[in-house]
């Protein structure tokens, strides 16, 4: 694709339109001039023919004779190509001839009055034939004789004038055209200046400086407002995504340091001095156990990364009964609950269903229930309440644990956030469970929030859009065999 220039296109458009206008103007004015001058010429021709006719008089004799006062013929307008004329009577008797009339034989009037064009030796002439009564007559004395006047005059004067008028108009128009084009180019450049400014502003945007500062001229340009707005929105989105990714990478690298340090120190400790086979075996098993921890963290980070970038679109979703899904998650946690003698009560208001991936939901409930069970004092109760308001499903998971301090509460859904790390370290957490849950719930258009007061327990509230059809069989949004095979079915 060749590069195109808006400025050049606009200038070309203006130049071409002005050129067309100029051609039209010059052409029109030449045509008009031509017509006007020809009309004037024709009138002059008629007047001169009439004046020649007026020179024909009757003599005083009887019967009177027609005489022509040749010496009263006006001098020729053009010396080189004088006018030519012939005056005859209607029957054909020649009354008078200009000296070179014979040359005008090319003038063919076909016996009718009127104008006609012809050439003599390459010179354009215009002739006129007209019939007039003899002016100098007395009604009682003379017969009513009619004269036929043929008069021809060269056209070159007129043509020259037409040409000159054309040339003057052309020159004037050309000057105006040049001025107009120059003005158009200047105006165009100035008009396109905000675009250049916008480009300069955009060039300054970088990962360390996301703000688009396009300058006042851009902001005051109506046409650029949608573009700048769109660019700003796009940059905002990019900045958020970029920062999220950067933070994630930084967090992940930071969080990986401790498990890596553990694994590395375990192996180095093993190599610190010669050991027995049993000691090496025990050391390697310890290293593997440390490795498991690293692997779990990696797995959790990948799950979070997938959940954060994944939307629910283009995935096979099922209509899931939330109480069943909670119960499934609880079944896996049953040993933990038994160990801590924690009772879990699930209450429901009828069937509450949502469209989601079963595995995702089980992961969310698993995370939330596990937290609740771990933080509830031994022998306590975790209450799960599932309800709906007709549009949205609501799941509340309440524990009577120590609660979360007001300082930590706004941050608990941030990845890798550990308010009091002793709590999560003991439970083997990485501060990712709630972040993963949040990302998953939001991918389904839901919301998750925490309500807590120290010593009064914590309630996590999940709100999800209700599924449209409370149908039992799986609702396939994007049915394909490959997709359905990719979703592992793991019921416990």
């Amino acid at each position: 694709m060749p590069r195109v220039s808006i400025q050049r296109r606009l200038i070309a458009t203006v130049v071409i339109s002005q050129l067309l206008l100029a051609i039209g103007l010059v052409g029109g004015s030449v045509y008009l001039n031509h017509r006007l001058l020809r009309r004037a010429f024709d009138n002059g021709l008629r007047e001169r023919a009439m004046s020649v006719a007026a020179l024909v008089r009757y003599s005083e004799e009887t019967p009177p004779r027609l005489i022509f006062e040749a010496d009263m013929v006006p001098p020729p307008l053009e010396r080189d190509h004088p006018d030519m004329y012939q005056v005859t009577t209607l029957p054909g008797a020649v009354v008078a001839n200009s000296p070179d009339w014979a040359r005008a034989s090319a003038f063919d009037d076909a016996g009718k009055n009127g104008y006609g064009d012809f050439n003599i030796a390459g010179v354009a002439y215009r002739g006129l034939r007209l019939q007039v009564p003899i002016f100098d007559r007395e009604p009682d004395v003379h017969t009513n004789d009619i004269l036929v006047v043929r008069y021809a005059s060269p056209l070159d004067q007129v043509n020259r004038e037409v040409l000159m008028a054309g040339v003057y108009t052309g020159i004037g128009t050309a000057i105006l055209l040049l001025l107009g084009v120059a003005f158009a180019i200047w105006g165009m450049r100035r008009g396109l200046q905000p675009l250049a400014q916008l480009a300069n502003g955009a060039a300054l945007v970088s990962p360390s400086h996301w703000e688009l500062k396009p300058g006042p001229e851009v902001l005051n340009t109506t046409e650029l407002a949608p573009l700048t707005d769109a660019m700003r929105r796009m940059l905002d989105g990019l900045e958020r995504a970029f920062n999220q990714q950067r933070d994630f990478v930084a967090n992940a690298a930071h969080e990986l340091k401790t498990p890596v340090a553990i694994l590395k120190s375990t192996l180095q400790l093993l190599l610190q001095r010669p050991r027995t086979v049993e000691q090496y075996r025990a050391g390697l098993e310890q290293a593997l156990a440390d490795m498991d921890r690293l692997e779990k963290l990696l797995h959790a980070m990948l799950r979070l990364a997938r959940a954060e970038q994944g939307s629910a679109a283009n995935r096979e979703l099922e209509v899931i009964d939330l109480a069943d899904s909670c119960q499934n998650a609880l079944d896996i946690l049953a040993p933990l609950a038994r160990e801590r003698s924690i009772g879990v009560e699930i209450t429901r208001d009828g069937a509450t269903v949502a469209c989601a991936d079963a595995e995702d939901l089980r992961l969310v409930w698993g995370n939330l229930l596990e937290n609740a069970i771990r933080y509830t004092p031994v022998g306590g109760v975790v209450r799960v309440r599932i309800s709906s308001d007709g549009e949205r499903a609501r799941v509340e998971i309440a524990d009577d644990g120590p609660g979360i301090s007001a300082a930590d509460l706004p941050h608990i859904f941030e990845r890798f956030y550990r308010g009091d790390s002793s709590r999560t370290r003991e439970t083997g957490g990485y501060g990712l469970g709630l972040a993963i849950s949040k990302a998953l719930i939001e991918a389904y258009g839901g919301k998750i929030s925490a309500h807590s007061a120290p010593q009064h327990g914590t309630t996590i509230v999940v709100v999800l859009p209700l599924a449209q059809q409370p149908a039992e069989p799986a609702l396939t949004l994007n049915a394909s065999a490959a997709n359905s095979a990719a979703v592992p079915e793991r019921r416990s």
Partner: protein
Amino acid sequence: MRVLVIEDEQRLAQNVARSLREGAGYAVDVASDGEDGLFMAQSNEYDLVILDLMLPKLDGRSVLHRLRQSSSVPVLVLTARDEKESIVALLNTGADDYVLKPFDLGELLARCKALVRRGKGQSLPVLKVGNLEVNTADRSVQRDGKRIELTAMEYRVLEYLAFRAGAVVSKTELLEHLYDFSWERFSNVIEVYISGLRRKLDDTAQARLIHTMRGQGYILRN
């Protein structure tokens, strides 16, 4: 020598403690949160404190700040943050050195030994008292150019005495600095090690180096 490791990551604390015990022959106590760590550091005589920054209850920086109000024990900080500002701030708060996670255990050990040495006013890893040479790097002992084989505990007693050469060291001080909380302490055990050391070091041909100050303790001098 006795070291306190304040580290909440249990596995890491275990590895560091074991490495210090095996690689340097130090007695090691472990505290798993900031409050415990501060209390232990203030109420015992440590030759070195290894401090993690991310700690529950009381973060490492606060531990360091409070510890420095009463103690000049060498402090080595374990950190995962490698930003200059935070390291500068740490050193200015009173840390003596730092290592970045994930660290090299050998390097950590060498730094610990160097800090202990510096804390005792020594700059060389080989301590000399008369014709006795105690090499703290490979934990070997020579007298008059001849290598002397010591048990681990004998070496630890001698190393401590060598660091404090010329000063009277009480049994209590030896117990404080040579045993961590997991050991039972009996002061007569020290006497056993001292007599063992005398037997190996001060053979009849040479001048005695370990002297008993009755009712006060021991002194290592030429």
